[in-house]
């Protein structure tokens, strides 16, 4: 039984499209990522799955329960943890009172362990807490009943990098224990680090579902080479080489095989050669090439770069404008 089965799920707010014809499956024990800029429909999809919104058409099942039937949905929610990026909490109550209440509604097997792990001071009034600490309160509420399915909607947006790491570790532990996860994010690094597969949402539609591995290979290799000879641009303008830059060193994104690359370099005396995975953004951008350079997307792309510290350094990847142009080349 899949953890989530989404069948042509469509939600319109009046005439405004939230999501349209979204179909995907999250297998038991899988971590599935929803990737897309703000406004792409990630939150609408998750809130429709949880029954906060009734779908215009289509359907979904969570843990085998029909998500569109109130009674069935409630049964599913016994085993679901939900963490939004900007959770609504009671400002006037202490974290302890709020968590007591949440525990009364859903159970709290691992509350103490989570509170200790994330260093939450429960005695403080929620309104007096920092954004990160508020997020911890919601995090404890989402995980404390040891749910089988986690719906995490931009979960780390209020957390500092150290806590993001701790959060990622927690998610991985829960997956090892058998939980399934749907994680939405506009931060590519986060999705790449946690997810098995990624669904790319674009203007309310699921543009593609790919494994993170495939997404990486689609990005190709970032090649930097320094050769003894003077090179003309034309020598590297071959099939498979993109984003070509010719200077003291030659750099390009290579999407062909290694043999072809070696053949290409065979005509030169190679002094230095570096081949790394291309930043995931480049693969990601292929889903957005051409027609959607909205301002929201650029901000998101920038945010993605800022947090993906582990991505290989790339001369071209730091300039959003440049990346847009590159996307258009494909």
């Amino acid at each position, binding site marked *: 039984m899949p953890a989530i089965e989404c069948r042509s799920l469509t939600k319109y707010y009046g005439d405004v499209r939230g999501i349209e014809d979204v179909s995907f499956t999250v297998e038991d024990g899988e971590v599935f990522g929803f990737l897309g800029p703000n406004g792409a429909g990630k939150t609408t999809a998750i809130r429709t799955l949880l029954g906060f919104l009734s779908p215009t058409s289509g359907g979904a099942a969570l843990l085998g329960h029909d998500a569109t039937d*109130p009674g069935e949905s*409630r049964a599913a929610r016994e085993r679901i943890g939900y963490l*939004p990026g900007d*959770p*609504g909490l*009671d400002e006037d109550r202490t974290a302890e009172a709020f968590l007591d209440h949440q525990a*009364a*509604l859903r159970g709290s097997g691992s509350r103490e362990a989570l509170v200790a792990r994330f260093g939450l001071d429960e005695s403080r009034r929620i309104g007096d807490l920092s954004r990160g600490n508020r997020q911890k309160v*919601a995090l404890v*509420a989402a995980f404390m009943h040891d749910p089988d399915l986690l719906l995490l909607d931009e979960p780390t947006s209020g957390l500092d990098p150290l806590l993001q790491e701790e959060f990622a570790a927690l998610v991985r532990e829960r997956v090892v224990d058998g939980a399934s996860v749907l994680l939405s994010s506009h931060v590519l690094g986060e999705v790449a680090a946690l997810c098995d597969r990624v669904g790319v949402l674009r203007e309310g539609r699921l543009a593609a579902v790919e494994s993170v591995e495939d997404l990486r290979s689609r990005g190709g290799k970032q090649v930097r080479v320094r050769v003894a000879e003077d090179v003309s641009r034309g020598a590297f303008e071959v099939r498979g080489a993109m984003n070509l830059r010719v200077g003291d060193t030659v750099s390009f994104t290579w999407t062909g095989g290694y043999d072809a690359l070696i053949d290409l370099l065979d005509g030169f005396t190679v002094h230095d050669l570096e081949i790394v995975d291309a930043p995931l953004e480049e693969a990601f951008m292929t889903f957005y090439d051409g027609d959607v350079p909205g301002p929201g997307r650029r901000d998101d792309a920038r945010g993605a770069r800022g947090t993906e510290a582990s991505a290989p350094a790339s001369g071209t990847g730091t300039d959003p404008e440049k990346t847009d142009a590159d996307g258009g080349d494909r």
Partner: protein
Amino acid sequence: MSDRPAPWLAIARYEAAGRARGSVVLTGLLSGFLLLFLAFFPSMSSAGIDLDAYVESFPPAFQEAFGIISISTIEGFLAVEFYQFAWLLMVGLYLAYLSGGTIAGDVASGRMDLTLSAPVARRDVVFGRFLGLVPLVLLLNVVLPVVAYVGVLAVGETIAAERLVAVHALAVPYHLCCVALGVVVSTLVSRAGVAQRVALGGLFALFMFESLAASSEYDWAGAVSPTAHYDPSAVLVNAEYDAAGAAVLLAATAALVLLAVLRFRRADLAG
């Protein structure tokens, strides 16, 4: 799992606990207000003015609106100066205002998302939010008759305790109806601030309508207002206990809560 309370009970407890301090403060303020008015009574009644003749000169609609039967006795004075104004109008409006913000406020702030991500039915939320205001209604109507009784004795007057108990016992269905009205509005209007003002304004409009209708040939139409079914003056001055009115208010309360459940069950949570 079985050691968890019913969701509606958990929600009601949590909401009531959150209102505990505010409820005590409100009860204290209203007690002070009542005692302040009572302190005026001795000087008024000893001034030798025929107050009843004075109020009889008021227009009928005004007399109707404020339930003026007599003002020269302690019962009539309390009815006009405190119960008709503070208990019927002010507390009623305040309760409608408070409950108007409940569900709409939770939806707008995103709190409802966290509540409903737990295994909680929408109807549990409506019941819980309604019941969360019941302790305030009970606290007010248990403490104030005691304050009133002691206050009346303190100014050297006497009053039948039975009438004070009755005026508060009959206020409970009325106040619950005000809460239920607010809860319904809270499921109909998505913005909390607007829902609160609509609930308050709606109740006030009903009160005005009833007052005006009573002095017209369409007096039967005034029955749509909750205020038509609770008459503190009749209780205090004439010892007339309107059990039928209480029953109407309780039935209306149940109907309004049910309407809120039906409405909220289908609603999309904006967010």
